[in-house]
């Protein structure tokens, strides 16, 4: 009996070590590929920064308005961003290749799916970037218009505008990558509907006076302001 157990154990251990001996080179290959990938990505990043970091390219970005565009979306300058993108794309490709070197068939399938997925992720990122720019623009325009018209809670209004636009674009981005399409759509519809209904109820019940004041201000203030401060002609 004891002998049988010993035989089984030694066979299992033997199998394990032979499997390990077969698998270890794959792991080492993976580590080497990932490390090499890191070095290649780093070199490429530095090269991109050197090549595109020249004054003329920076000037071109400035004159084309690209630098301002990035700044408006709270992103780093174009050259830095390009360097970062190159680094991560190259390294991720090497990581995926490294994982592929393990030779696990289930992982292989996932990796091929990941590569199929990349364009959609890229499009979703572009959608988000555009959304950020648009949200930023309209929220600032709202803040300025509301402040110059002396509306109360101008900042709240501008934040709301930003939030609605961002939610809208996040929904679009998630739909692009196909993440819980129905759930996202339903959640957005419910959230948007609830917001509108809440606003309607707030104005209808809780904020009747405020609504009246705003409407009065909009339609009746013209004459009043003509009589008072607008007596001053700016030109």
């Amino acid at each position, binding site marked *: 009996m004891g002998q049988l157990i010993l035989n089984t154990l030694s066979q299992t251990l033997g199998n394990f070590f032979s499997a390990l001996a077969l698998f270890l080179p794959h792991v080492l290959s993976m580590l080497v590929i990932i490390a090499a990938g890191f070095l290649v990505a780093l070199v490429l990043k530095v090269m991109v920064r050197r090549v595109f970091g020249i004054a003329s390219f920076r000037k071109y970005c*400035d004159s084309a*308005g690209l*630098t*301002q565009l990035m*700044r*408006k979306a709270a992103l780093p300058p174009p050259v830095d961003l390009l360097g970062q993108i190159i680094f991560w794309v190259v390294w991720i490709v090497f990581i995926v290749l490294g994982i592929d070197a393990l030779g696990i068939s289930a992982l292989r399938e996932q990796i091929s799916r990941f590569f199929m997925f990349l364009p959609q992720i890229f499009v979703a990122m572009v959608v988000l970037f555009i959304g950020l720019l648009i949200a930023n*623009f309209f929220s*600032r*325009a709202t*803040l*300025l*218009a*509301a*402040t*110059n018209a*002396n509306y109360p809670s*101008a*900042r709240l209004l501008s934040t709301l505008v930003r939030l609605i636009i961002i939610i809208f674009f996040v929904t679009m981005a998630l739909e692009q990558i196909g993440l819980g399409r129905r759930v996202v759509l339903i959640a957005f519809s419910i959230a948007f509907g609830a917001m509108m209904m809440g606003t309607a109820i707030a104005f209808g019940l809780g904020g009747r006076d405020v609504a009246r004041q705003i409407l009065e201000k909009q339609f009746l203030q013209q004459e009043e302001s*003509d*009589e*008072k*401060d*607008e*007596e*001053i*002609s*700016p*030109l």
Partner: protein
Amino acid sequence: MAEETFLSDEFVRKLTAVGEVDILVAVPTFNNRNTIEQVVNAVQLGLVKYFPRERIVLINPDGGSKDGTPEAIRNSSTPDFRTVLSSAPLRTIHRITTTYGSVDGRSTAWRIIMAAADLLRARACAVVSPDIESITPEWIEALVRPVYKEQFDLVTPIYHRHKYDGLLVNNIIAPAIRAVYGVNVREPVGSELGFSGRLACHYLEQEVWHEEFVRARTEIWMTTRAIADGFRLCQAFLGPKVHAQETSTQNIVTAIREALGTLLRCMENQQAYWLSRTEPPQMAPVFGLEYSSGLEPRRINRKKMLEMFHNGVSQLTPILESILSPETLGQVKWISQQNEKQFQFPDELWVKTIYEFAASYHHSVINREHLLQALTPIYRGRICSVVLENQRAGAEQIEKRREALFQEYERQRPLLVEKWARKA
């Protein structure tokens, strides 16, 4: 040059029939039926009285009036000059009307006038607003004579105005032009102008007529262009300016966007001229006797202006942070906390603020429309301070304060040059 598509065939035919002229006077119109006859009569009287021997044409570019303005000009009877003048006209005053429907609006009217001056080889031209109730025949002489007799190229107006009128011009546009371009022009936004035929040809050659900033405030572009290109400039005192349709209700945001936006775009286009300018500012000669008279007091809602300044600075702080330096913003925020009794927006801070806005506009730190809008609450604060300071001030005191502000703009000019040239 004159055979451009913005001139209708009929208009060109009429101009050709007139031949060459010495003086061209233009009255651009758009639904001004109520005042146009009075203006045209004053123009004709002025021409007959002061230029009886010259060949003259009166041009009316109309923006598509629905109230019969062009018909009123065409059918207006020639005034009986004998009842008001000792002299009678020696020549016929030609009157030509043309209608344009371009989206470019004002700038198209200006282009038509320039093209007509070019075609008719006019020596001197004058443009007057169609809705001025206070126009007299002397305005025509004041605008035309410096060009016709003294060889000036551009005559800008000086009006007798209420101390609280034209505050945007007096606090930003005029002093900035003096400091930047080196010529003192009191009314660079005035709608009455005189100019020579050669300057008209020069304007016509510029390829900026479809640009938004030229459309918005053509007069500012004309003034700065003339200075930058070395044309001779002078000013003519016209007296009080009273519009039939009160324009004082013009929205401050729009006024800042149009006037300051145009000036800053002009500064960008002409930076080669003004950045290298080193000589001290010159006074553009003034023709006509300037006088001042008492003006009725006005009720100004200072409390509301101050409140809008406080709220505006507090609400727009995140935007102002990207436009102003921390030091300037700190000072603006500090004065925005003061109450009406202590409140004062000093010249030094005001000029620094304007120059920092100008440099930020040039470097496009944020959307340019937004940047100009962000100035509105600060402008309100400055105007409130001016109103408080000048409550009991007479004409002499106001002139002194204006001069002090102009000098502050000049003193801080190196700051503008430095910030303008610095990379964003």
